[in-house]
C-alpha cells in the first residue's frame, strides 16, 4: 500500500527553484541579530522548519505541475515564498556569500552545514 505522495508524484526528482536563486547575492554584513536574545528562539525554530517546508514545497511543486491539480499553484508559490524569505533571512544574518551556488544550495546549506549547526548549538 503506497502513500498519496508515491501514488501521484515523485518527491525525489530534482526540482529547480527559481526564487531561491535570488538568495545568491552578496551578503557582507554581520548584523548583531545573531547576538540578540531573540536569535536563539528564532534559529532553533527556523532550521527544522526550513527542512519541513522544503519537503512541502517539493511536494506542492510536483503536484501543481499536473493539469488536474493546477488550482493549488498559488498555494505552491506562496509556500515557496515563505521558504525563500526564511532562507534569505538566515543567509543575511550569517553574512553568507551565496554567489554561484546551486539554486537550492542556500537551503541545503542551512540544513547541513556543520559550521551553521555548531553556530546554532552554541546559541
Amino acid at each position, binding site marked *: 500500500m*503506497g*502513500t498519496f505522495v508515491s501514488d501521484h508524484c515523485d518527491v525525489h526528482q530534482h526540482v529547480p527553484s527559481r526564487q531561491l536563486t535570488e538568495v545568491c547575492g552578496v551578503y557582507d554584513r554581520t548584523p548583531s*541579530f545573531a547576538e540578540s536574545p531573540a536569535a536563539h528562539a528564532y534559529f532553533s525554530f527556523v532550521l527544522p522548519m526550513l527542512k519541513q517546508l522544503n*519537503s512541502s514545497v517539493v*511536494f506542492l511543486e510536483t503536484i501543481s505541475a499536473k493539469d488536474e491539480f493546477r488550482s493549488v499553484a498559488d498555494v505552491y508559490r*506562496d509556500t515557496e515564498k515563505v521558504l525563500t524569505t526564511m532562507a534569505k*533571512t538566515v543567509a543575511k544574518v550569517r553574512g553568507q556569500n551565496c554567489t554561484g551556488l546551486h539554486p537550492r544550495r542556500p537551503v541545503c546549506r542551512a540544513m547541513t552545514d556543520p559550521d551553521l549547526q555548531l553556530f546554532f548549538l552554541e546559541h
Partner: protein
Amino acid sequence: MSIQLPSQFDANHIEMVHTLLKVAAEPDQPSAPGRRKAAEQAVQKCLFVPGFVPVVHAIFCNTKVAHNVRFVAIVCAKNAVSQHWGKTQRRVPFRRRGAAPSPPAPPPASEADKRQLKSALLQSVLRESDTLLARHGALLAALVVRAEVRGMGRSAGRSVGGGGGPSQAPQFWPDFFPTVMDGLRSESQDVVFNALQILFHAMDTFSKMKILVHKMLFQAQSARVLPALQQLFQTLASNLSTDMLSIQQLPGGTPPSFAVQKISGMRQRVKLCLFAAKTLRRCIVNGYVRE
C-alpha cells in the same frame, strides 16, 4: 465646466464629496461629456483642502457605498497623505534666479485632520472584509506612519543628539502598535490578516527610511515588535507544516480531489504565514545593523 468647492470640508460635505467621487469613478456619459474630467480635476484640488481626508475616510468606512466609490475614496486619501502630510511650511520659497515666481505652496495638513484620521483608520482597516480595500487601507496606514515619523524626526533627533536614545525618543502615533498587536491576537482570521498586512506595509516603509534618526527609531520599534511577531510566525508556520505533512501522508488510493480541496483550504493561512515571514525579515535585517 467648473465645480464650486468649499474652503474647508466637514461632515456636512460627505454627500457632496460622495457625488464627486461617484462621477469620477464611473465612465463618462454620452449625455454629459466632460463631466468626469471636471470631477477628477475637482477631486485633485480637494486633496489640499482642510477636512477632505476625514471626509473621504468616512466614505471609505461606509459599507453601503458602492465598491468603486470606496476604492476611489481610499486612493484619494492615500494621494492626499503622500503628497501633503509630510510637508512643512517653507518660510522663504526657493526661487531660481530669473525664474518666474512659483505659485504659493499649499498650507501644511492640519493637526485636527491628522488626529481624526489616526483615531479611526486602524479600526476601519482591521474590520474591512474586502481584500483589495483592506490592502489599500494598510498602505494608507503605512503612509501615515511615514509622514508621522518624518514629522517627528527633528524632535527625535534632538533627543538622540542630546544624550537620549531611540527608546527615549517621543512616540509617533502612540496607538499604532498596541492596536495592530490587538488585531494580531484576534479570533477572526480576517482581522489577523488585515493586522499583519498593516504591520508589514508599515514596517516595510519604515525600514526603507534612510536618515539616521529614522533608522534608530525603526530599531527601537523592531525590538518591541519582534517577540510577538516571532511567536505568531512560529504558530502559523508550525500549523502550516503539520497540515502539509498530513496531506503528504494521506493513504494511497485517496482521491486527488480530496487532497486538492485540503490544499486549497490552506490558501489564506499560507498568505498569513508569508506576511509574517516578510515582516520578520524586515525587522531582523534592518532592525539589527552592524555596530
